[in-house]
């Protein structure tokens, strides 16, 4: 057992506060909660991917044993339930605004993807609800379905929304192609690539679950559901069901079993459950099993890209042209149609200086569940494209891949990208050197020879990446010192695995000099979360929430000085604060003394409000454009069996610059988790809809390839921290970096291994079957030529 550190400040590998209860079975996830007298709800889900609804007959279901109510979209409509619309306001080059769908939680006209909820049954028991769903007559006229972005863009494709005959919700372009075309015309070399970025399912381990508890006495609805920040669900349900009165809606989540972006969304299921609870005036519970979670959770990725880089004779990039089709699914959701633009667009050219850009992004609607935010949200896709291109370019230009990257790295900061973002700092070459050294890149040749001697192919692949983190540019925190000196941090960010109770305590302990163990985090309840709190997503909680804590602490210190001055019979201006001690005129009082006095009106100066309780709304200076820019370089080494096509991951070296590292133990965990999701996408995860019927073929862990422990090797994660200049903590956000580097590093490694066999291109996932086919395809080609 290694020795324990006694220190709990910033930068220490502090073991997490939240773990004791999680390790002993004491965590409280949504399905662990039961409300006295709760009813159970079950959904009828569309068995077809695309169909016009003729009639939904609920008579037999309503008469089934134990059934309390059956609702369809008609009921929601009659009761004036609001429709969900995205707040994306992007426009096409000619000013045409994005096409927005108005989505009722249960559709009345058509179903647009297999698994879309169309009716609910509420019954006394869960079995009764499930049985009664079988009795609903769902009379439809089936329509042809379209499930891929390319197919949706083709002439004569099935049309999802009558008002949108070309299925393209938004064709966004940064500019006309003219500027790029003119540099391309003078280029020494144009390197092109066509890529498919496979659709993945986020899969938090806690399946979807929701309890809505309506109290008819108070007129208040309490929602229990896994969610990444309750203020947002509260606002949405208030708008849709309570005329915008947020006081009428409370959201509670004690523990949430993973989020990855997909638990930050307002799902139609939640709206329907809340509607049912409100209508019936009681508590209603729904547990979505894994199968329901697969078909209905918002998915991630799913793009096809045609990309090219124009180079001059020195291997310097002259321009970048990217044409992307995104499959945004059946509805225009909160973020789906902006992921490739505002998300990936932030860092479109990766770590490289791109003087000219043409970017065209068509967001295509298909008969699939929508894609939306999934760990990285556009940045993994963008980095994947540019890193595959750079690797290919190095080969075609005959320049060493590291050298080509070095020549094109952004080196002077701040750097304004073609998409208008200001990258404040970084040292991309230093990260690459660190990863090259850790991976013993120089010694690869010898290792490859040993593999070859055993009949195996060994490969090594590198990917540099740039991330843009921070999300919404404001967050609020409340810090309250109790009279015994204990401190409560009260927030609306929500830790669902990130360890905020630990990290926030480290920040506050360091700032105030108070004991780490005296600090407690109160989260997961809109009744306590300060107004204006936003939530946890976009790798933002430490950089936004952490800053709000620092500023709230400054306010505590200011008030503390007034109280200390009164106690020490000194002027406020004379009081100094350091390490939990206020001192003036040779005397001093501790933070605990001041906290105690703050709660005792007899010991306070005239006019000062009792308590030591401050709330601070922190706003990032530069707003949306002032993200932080985590970056790094990842190297993956693999061995491949040419007989079977199976790949074994052997080593992984990550060199990350996520700015100041608040807790290396936790940041390592974030890097490992992100890398595993990236490797998962590159190796085995793949979401397949049948192209004829539109049915989800990969709807369980039996068919969807989740990465498991044996698929991954040991990873070495190191830091090259260059503090962000956009916040005083210097943090850049660590949550999403891993999955930005891993896919390209892994694929480049496999392609490196396959080079002797003449395989030069592969799309993810690199399953044994896909690799074996590529090997034999290349062989066949070789035989023919």
């Amino acid at each position, binding site marked *: 057992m290694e020795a324990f550190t006694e220190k709990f400040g910033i930068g220490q590998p502090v073991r997490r506060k939240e773990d*004791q209860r999680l*390790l*002993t079975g004491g*965590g409280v996830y949504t399905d662990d909660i039961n409300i006295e007298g709760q009813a159970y709800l079950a959904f009828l889900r569309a068995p077809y991917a695309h169909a016009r609804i003729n009639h939904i007959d609920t008579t037999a279901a309503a008469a089934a044993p134990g059934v309390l109510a059956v609702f369809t979209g008609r009921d929601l409509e009659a009761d004036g339930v609001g429709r969900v619309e995205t707040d994306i306001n992007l426009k096409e080059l000619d000013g045409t605004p994005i096409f927005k769908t108005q989505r009722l939680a249960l559709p009345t006209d058509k179903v647009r993807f297999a698994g879309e909820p169309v009716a609910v049954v509420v019954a006394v028991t869960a079995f009764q609800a499930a049985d009664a769903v079988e009795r609903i007559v769902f009379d439809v006229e089936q329509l042809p379905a379209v499930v891929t972005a390319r197919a949706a863009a083709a002439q004569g494709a099935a049309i999802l929304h009558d008002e949108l005959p070309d299925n393209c919700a938004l064709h966004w372009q940064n500019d006309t192609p003219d500027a790029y075309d003119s540099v391309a015309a003078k280029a020494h070399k144009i390197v092109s690539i066509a890529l498919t970025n496979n659709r993945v399912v986020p899969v*938090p381990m806690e399946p979807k679950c929701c309890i809505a508890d309506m109290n008819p006495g108070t007129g208040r609805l309490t929602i229990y559901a896994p969610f990444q920040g309750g203020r947002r669900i509260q606002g949405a349900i208030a708008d849709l069901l309570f005329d915008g009165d947020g006081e009428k809606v409370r959201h509670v989540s004690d523990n*949430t079993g993973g989020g990855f972006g997909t638990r930050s969304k307002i799902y139609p299921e939640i709206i329907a459950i809340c509607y049912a609870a409100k209508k019936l005036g009681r508590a209603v519970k729904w547990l979505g099993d894994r199968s329901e979670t697969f078909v209905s959770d918002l998915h991630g990725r799913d793009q096809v890209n045609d990309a090219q880089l124009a180079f001059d004779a020195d291997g310097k990039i002259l321009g970048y042209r990217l044409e992307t089709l995104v499959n945004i699914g059946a509805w225009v959701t909160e973020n789906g149609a902006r992921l490739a633009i505002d998300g990936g667009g932030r860092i479109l050219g990766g770590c490289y200086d791109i003087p000219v850009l043409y970017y065209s992004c068509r967001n295509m609607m298909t008969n699939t569940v929508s894609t939306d935010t999934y760990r990285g949200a556009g940045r993994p896709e963008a980095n994947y494209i540019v890193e595959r291109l750079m690797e290919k370019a190095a080969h075609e230009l005959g320049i060493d891949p590291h050298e080509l990257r070095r020549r094109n790295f952004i080196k002077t900061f701040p750097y304004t990208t073609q998409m208008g973002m200001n990258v404040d700092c970084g040292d991309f070459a230093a990260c690459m050197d660190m990863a090259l050294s850790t991976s013993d890149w120089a010694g690869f040749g010898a290792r490859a020879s040993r593999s070859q001697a055993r009949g195996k192919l060994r490969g090594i692949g590198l990917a540099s990446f740039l991330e843009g983190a921070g999300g919404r540019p404001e967050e609020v925190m409340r810090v309250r010192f109790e009279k015994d000196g204990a401190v409560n941090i009260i927030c609306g960010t929500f830790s669902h*695995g990130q360890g905020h109770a630990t990290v926030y305590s480290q920040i506050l302990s360091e700032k105030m000099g108070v004991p780490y163990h005296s600090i407690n985090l109160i989260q997961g309840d809109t009744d306590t979360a300060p107004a204006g709190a936003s939530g946890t997503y976009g790798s933002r909680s430490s950089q936004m929430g952490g800053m709000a804590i620092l500023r709230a602490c400054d306010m505590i210190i200011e008030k503390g000085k007034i109280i200390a001055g009164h106690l020490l019979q000194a002027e406020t201006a004379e009081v100094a604060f350091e390490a939990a001690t206020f001192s003036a005129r040779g005397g001093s009082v501790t933070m605990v003394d001041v906290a105690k006095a703050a709660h005792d009106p007899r010991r306070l100066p005239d006019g000062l409000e009792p308590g030591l309780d401050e709330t601070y709304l922190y706003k990032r200076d530069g707003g949306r454009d002032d993200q932080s820019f985590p970056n790094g370089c990842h190297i993956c080494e693999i061995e491949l069996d040419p007989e079977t096509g199976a790949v074994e991951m052997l080593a992984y070296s990550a060199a990350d610059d996520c700015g100041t590292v608040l807790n290396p133990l936790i940041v390592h965990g974030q890097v490992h988790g992100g890398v595993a999701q990236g490797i998962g996408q590159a190796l085995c995860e793949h979401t397949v809809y049948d192209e004829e019927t539109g049915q989800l073929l990969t709807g369980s862990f039996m068919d969807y390839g*989740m990465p498991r422990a044996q698929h991954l090797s040991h990873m070495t994660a190191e830091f090259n921290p260059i503090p962000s200049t956009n916040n005083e903590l210097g943090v850049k956000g660590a949550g999403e970096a891993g999955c930005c580097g891993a896919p390209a590093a892994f694929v480049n490694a496999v392609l490196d291994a396959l080079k002797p066999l003449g395989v030069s291109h592969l799309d993810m996932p690199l399953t044994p079957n896909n690799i074996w086919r590529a090997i034999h395809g290349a062989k066949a080609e070789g035989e023919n030529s």
Partner: protein
Amino acid sequence: MSIEVSMNVNGKPVSAEVEPRTLLVQYLREHLGLTGTHVGCDTSQCGCCNIHLNGESIKSCTIFAIQCEGQDVLTIEGLADEDGTLHPMQQAFWEHHGLQCGFCTPGMVMVACDIARRLPDADEKTIRQELEGNICRCTGYQHIVEAIESGIKAMNAKGQVGQGRAENV
């Protein structure tokens, strides 16, 4: 139709009237209120529901409660000492940051104890293979594997490995 099912859970005799189709995991969660055992899938793939039956790790979603009549069940709630002192494997998960959201954790810890019991010399590769039936989406498994290596050592030191009985785990 309900029937009475009795067994020993975490060292205590328990009994509940349940429908015959009740799975062990439902019996534990819904009838005994032991919600530390989780359900993460419906195909017996994820391992969030792992418990020990007569000292061996099984997925509690794959067995009916009635099949466990009169037998010994150990869940995550019964692993630590009554005074709250963590079991060496729980302690190792804590020290090595072997959990993030915590949902897969009870199943991971129960399986880890079983690995220690069967394979007291397990190396990293063996542990990775042994985790074939347990999915974690947060950690990338690395800290879990490190925790299990360390937990096995700690259990070795306390003479808690290489045995077949629940009370020794």
